[in-house]
């Protein structure tokens, strides 16, 4: 019997505003503990929330990029619960009337493109952070993050596999970054994800039990958690290994298993009600138009444009548009070099490799497009070879070194003096008579060893085409034995 996995995601993204949602404290990360705090976001009595309009702009931008309906009247509600990181003992959120509804995201999976529904997007404030000191057994609260604006993007339960979830999150994250909506960095928690998962027999109408996994903050952990959790569900249904209950579960990535946190049946009643301190805000046509006119080109459209204009493959284009920083770099360099295909190859195979090695987020890559373009031209014109080009890119990436300076200082310019090369080739043939006779005797592979020896002797500066030519010539001229 085949099983179907049903997954819905709730993604929280921290909005890229300079100040918090209801006060003027900085919302930037990195401040010393409890420095970005005022009486309002510390829950002191007497301060009233005043909405930061930029938050609404960004939430609307997100809604438009995710093809949502935008509600014309915005209101906020209070969600009541006690936790030490929540200074007012309530969170201001949108419960009754979220700003955006009924959108979708197109994703590409191995099989077919799919449209994943977006149920709603709503705005809310973040909570603070508890820091537990295991030495003294005390807990301390840092209010720097309280009242930092968030949007929560709730998908429909349309996702069917870990792969689809990954594709959805990649696309969503790219959209958030393209729109300047959120930094959306998993590693700093400016994007995080709750996963709702259930399993049912394919085609069956039986009621399935849903579990929710909270606050997942890496793509690989999400994939592992989905694999684990769906297997657990399937085994429970098929073999009766356990009785499934609706509950919230945590994910222990180190152990590779999920664990029960609390039962949904006894979950808190949040006692939502409209916040009387925040008057409903009407969104008029002009506001809608202003946001619409500032929308960025979506990664989808950009990828389509690259396919059209540069005849690049679809998978390559997807990689290029995965981050606006990369897409911008690609466009700038392709324009300067006039070599879009070479540029794409340099970015996808070389730049990404360096970024992986240095563990640099693609969004954080900032190298000079002029210098990068120059490097690609140098290789294309055979001024330096590809291997030297890679070294130059390393230096450009890590230290900003100009590739021309690097080539000059390290004497990498390709040697085009054929006289020099002929001499080297003759010497190599003499030194490696055994390999030469292997090659002449029919072992084709032996030729590569000779080329390698010549290139090493030329210290990597030999023009491969010329070297090959001279080598063939020299072998042909060898006296036959």
């Amino acid at each position, binding site marked *: 019997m085949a099983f179907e996995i049903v997954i819905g995601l709730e993604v929280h993204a921290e909005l890229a505003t300079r100040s918090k949602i209801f006060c003027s404290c900085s919302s930037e990360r990195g401040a010393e503990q409890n420095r970005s705090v005022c009486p309002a976001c510390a*829950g*002191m009595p*007497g301060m*009233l*929330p005043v909405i930061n309009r930029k938050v609404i702009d960004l939430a609307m931008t997100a809604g438009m990029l995710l093809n949502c309906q935008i509600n014309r009247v915005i209101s906020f509600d209070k969600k*009541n619960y006690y936790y030490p990181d929540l200074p007012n003992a*309530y969170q201001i959120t949108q419960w009754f009337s979220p700003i955006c509804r009924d959108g979708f995201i197109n994703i590409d999976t191995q099989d077919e493109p799919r449209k994943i529904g977006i149920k709603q997007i709503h705005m809310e404030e973040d909570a603070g952070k508890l820091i537990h000191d295991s030495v003294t057994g005390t807990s301390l609260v840092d209010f720097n993050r309280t009242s930092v604006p968030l949007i929560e993007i709730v998908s429909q339960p349309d996702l069917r596999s870990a792969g689809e979830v990954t594709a959805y999150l990649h696309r969503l994250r790219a959209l958030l970054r393209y729109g300047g909506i959120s930094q959306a960095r998993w590693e700093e928690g400016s994007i995080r994800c709750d996963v709702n998962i259930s399993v049912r027999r394919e085609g069956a109408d039986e009621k399935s039990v849903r579990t929710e996994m909270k606050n997942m903050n890496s793509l690989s952990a999400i994939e592992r958690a989905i694999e684990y959790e769906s297997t657990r569900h399937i085994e429970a249904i098929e073999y009766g290994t356990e009785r499934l209950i609706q509950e919230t579960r945590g994910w222990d990535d180190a152990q590779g298993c999920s664990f029960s946190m609390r039962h949904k049946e006894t979950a808190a009643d949040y*006692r939502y*009600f409209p916040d*009387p301190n925040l008057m409903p805000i009407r969104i008029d046509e002009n506001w809608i138009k202003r946001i619409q006119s500032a929308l960025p080109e979506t990664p989808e459209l950009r990828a389509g444009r690259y396919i059209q204009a540069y005849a690049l493959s679809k998978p390559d284009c997807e990689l290029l548009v995965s981050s606006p920083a990369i897409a911008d770099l690609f466009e700038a360099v392709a324009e300067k070099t006039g070599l879009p295909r070479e540029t794409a190859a340099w970015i996808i195979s070389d730049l990404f490799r360096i970024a992986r090695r240095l563990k640099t987020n693609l969004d954080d890559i900032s190298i000079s497009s002029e210098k990068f373009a120059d490097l690609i031209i140098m290789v294309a014109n055979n001024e330096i070879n590809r291997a030297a080009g890679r070294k130059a890119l390393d230096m450009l990436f890590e230290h900003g070194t100009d590739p021309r300076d690097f080539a000059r200082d390290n004497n990498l310019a390709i040697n085009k003096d054929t006289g020099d090369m002929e001499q080297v080739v003759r010497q190599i043939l003499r030194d490696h008579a055994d390999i030469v006779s292997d090659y002449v005797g029919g072992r084709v592979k032996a030729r590569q060893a000779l080329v390698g020896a010549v290139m090493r002797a030329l210290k990597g500066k030999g023009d491969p085409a010329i070297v090959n030519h001279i080598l063939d010539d020299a072998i042909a001229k060898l006296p036959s034995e």
Partner: protein
Amino acid sequence: MAEYITQAEIISNGRTAVVDDTILVTGMPATAGSKALENFKPLFDAEAVARLKANGYVISGKANVGEFALDILGETSYYGAVTDADGCLAGAASSLVAAGKADCALCLDVNGAPRRAAALSETVFIKPTYGTVSRHGAIPCVCSAEQIGVAARSVAHAADTLGVIAGFDQKDGTCIHESACYHITNAEGLRVFTADELGSQKKAEDALTAAGARIRRGSFAIAEAVRSAWHVLLCAEVCNNLSRYDGVKYGYRAPVYTNIDELYTNSRSQTLGITAKSMILYGSDVLSKDRYTQCYEKALRIRRLAHETLTKLFSEYDVFLLPACSVPSYKNGSLELLYRESLFTAPASITGFPAVALRGVQLIAAPLMETKALTAAAVLEGVI
């Protein structure tokens, strides 16, 4: 053409104000009458206080209030109730004003206590239209309704001081840009409504008639529904706003606890009084998933109905004359009595319409039409 006055030149205009303990004044404690805020020192002045100071008023001190200003006349204050020589309850702020210890008082009208206090003393209290005085710096309790108002010995003086504190403030998102007029004019031709359901105000009616006003009796049939709805909204917001006093950040923390739940439970059990606790329990019930629609949402509908009913009434009348309370004095408060007495204060509370209280009565006017209620009040203060 106001003359420009620099900060250095501002000296006392000779007027003193006391501020009730639900309103923040830098350098003075702000307890809201609760043990939960024992020794709490605010970091800033309430906007209304800042405006008084900027206009040369001297803040002479804080006045005691019932816990979070929820009760009849201050009887639930952790710091003790204020009573007169006969042992009757008296609002602390209005007592200070009546005794001449201060020229006026700022009071947060949460559940009608400042109106009752004025009506039972020789003072006047005006609760202005919701949104005309900033609530920035008022310890929040019922955010959808409470307003800072002014108590004074004369209607003119209350109106004058209200003019100083009123006006848009961007720190309060519910502040409105429109402003009211606080002039006292001629009562000739003033159209006054009284409700059968709320009893006759013989002396006041006679005085207003003598001044040329026209009195009409009619029905205000929704009075009891308004009271019930008001209590639902009041308790819900009290439940929500008092949650922040959890012992974690400031104020009182229980000395003994073994985990965070006990820290909350013990701190809150040991601080809040029975009135606040009852309201919190009732409020958390009406906001619960099971009861929200039948209680809270219904109360919001009655609030809208009250608004529509009074708006219609004020298309025919200038002032709604009604009692401020049912008895001439209180020796003790109780939850039951508090509920009964809010029959008279709930209409202005739930709608946010302006109301002036003095000499046992209340005068409600249409939003921003304070001038009508003040004009009627000025007639009464000279006669009753």
